[in-house]
């Protein structure tokens, strides 16, 4: 059997197992997969896409974007300046170790349950993987590359854009990848805690109204979203870091 066939075997078997064991199920908690798929089609193809899926994804991406921008900017500054790094070290260490979920109640109290509050929490929690990776990357840059840049009289802006950031990019991307996973967790958790829309919100409300197939459908959608976002990010990374992939494959 070809490799890909073997790899698909277990997932396909699991889905089949789910289908057959649930087909005649009368348990209210374990509805037939057929019903789950029907609920999925009803809600997510595409009735609730605009009202719930788009807001969820918007919050996730906005939070991630803010975290990435601020993380790279502050991380570069801290990486370049030893005194600044030492001075802010205790604050950074505390904030990055803080379990992000602990901030949600406070954020809701301060900013309500709207988009702003959720985006802020997502951004705060995602900030640290990006920031710490940027600091490490910037500190690890080969001094000879900087000598080259200086001796050819590149301006500070050119040094940043053409030398510093490209050199740091592989490690920064690793940080963003970690942040993406955390952003997804925080997106779901903020919606489960308190919200008026979003995929997580719909899924949890379905439980409260005992619409079990809808709940399973929401769970399936969230799972697919996690897989899709991760795949999209990897594709983006492969594109941006083509040079790095080519270089490491060669050695």
């Amino acid at each position, binding site marked *: 059997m070809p490799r890909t066939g073997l790899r698909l075997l277990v997932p396909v078997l699991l889905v089949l197992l789910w289908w057959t064991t649930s087909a005649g199920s009368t348990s209210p908690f374990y509805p037939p997969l057929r019903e789950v798929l029907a609920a999925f089609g009803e809600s997510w193809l595409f009735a609730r896409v605009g009202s719930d899926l788009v807001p969820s994804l918007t919050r996730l991406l906005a939070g991630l974007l803010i975290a990435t921008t601020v993380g790279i900017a502050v991380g570069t500054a801290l990486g370049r300046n030893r005194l600044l790094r030492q001075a802010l070290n205790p604050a950074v260490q505390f904030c990055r170790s803080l379990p992000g979920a602990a901030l949600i109640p406070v954020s809701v109290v301060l900013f309500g349950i709207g988009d702003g509050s959720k985006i802020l929490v997502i951004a705060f929690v995602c900030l640290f993987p990006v920031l710490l990776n940027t600091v490490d990357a910037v500190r690890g840059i080969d001094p*000879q590359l900087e000598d080259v840049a200086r001796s050819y009289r590149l301006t500070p802006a050119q040094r940043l854009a053409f030398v510093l950031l490209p050199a740091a990019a592989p490690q920064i991307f690793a940080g963003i990848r970690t942040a993406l996973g955390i952003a997804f967790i925080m997106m779901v958790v903020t919606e489960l805690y308190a919200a008026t829309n979003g995929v997580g919100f719909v899924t949890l409300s379905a439980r409260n109204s005992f619409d079990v197939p809808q709940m399973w459908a929401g769970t399936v959608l969230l799972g697919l979203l996690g897989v899709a976002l991760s795949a999209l990010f990897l594709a983006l990374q492969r594109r941006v870091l083509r040079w790095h992939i080519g270089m490491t494959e060669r050695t």
Partner: protein
Amino acid sequence: MLSVTNLRKTYGSGVQAVEAIRDLTLTVDRGEFVCVVGPSGAGKTTLLKSLCGLTKPSSGTVTLAGAPVTGPPKEIASVFQDYSRSLMPWFTVHRNVGLPLYNRYRSTADRAERVATALDAVGLSGFGDRYPWQLSGGMQQRVAIARGLAYAPEILLLDEPFASVDAQTRSDLEDLILRVRDDTGVTMLLVTHDIDEAVYLADRVVVLSARPSVVLETVEVDLPRPRDQVTTKRSPRFAELRAHVLTLIRRTALDGSASTPDHHSTTGERR
């Protein structure tokens, strides 16, 4: 044109201070090819870094056409020792060579033309779209030389440019440098620990002592040009000059601190 007077450079302070260069005075005239040769750890790289304004001397002066050098001057281009660490792996050959030209030529067409000329001069036309890591070591170092040439400097500084390539490539690159110099008339200052290379290339060889460095002697190389890897190196005069420089270096290496760590030997480990 480029002159160094009583240059001294100490790293660190207090008891841990290391005196890399004690007292160096030398001049390079316009159009000249000067090689600086010295035992390992003789502060050769420190000298070059002071010349191109990357480090500040502890005392003494560096002047270029009479004006003191305080930062990297636009008249000087450098070729660094380790090509794998001096080219940007995220840029193609073309962009690597063109990078320093951003502030000099506004138009993309002008830049492209200069890059093409420089790549042609080092025999790399047609490789502009490759990435440095797709090329052999010798080709990468030629890209670095092309980058220096495209900058249109009055002086080209070369820091052990052929230290990390194999012997055959090395002599090819030496001849390439000589040809470039004939074509462009650019002033060259090359630092090396290879005595043959220094004598083969230079109009004058400046021999440094072990650390802390002083100039032991400046040797005029009166070998005829054009030079040739076979005939020049076979001539009795070449052997004589080579033996003379070697004797100077041997002596300094013996009474200098033999325990001096070889600073260049560490550069190859970071890969």
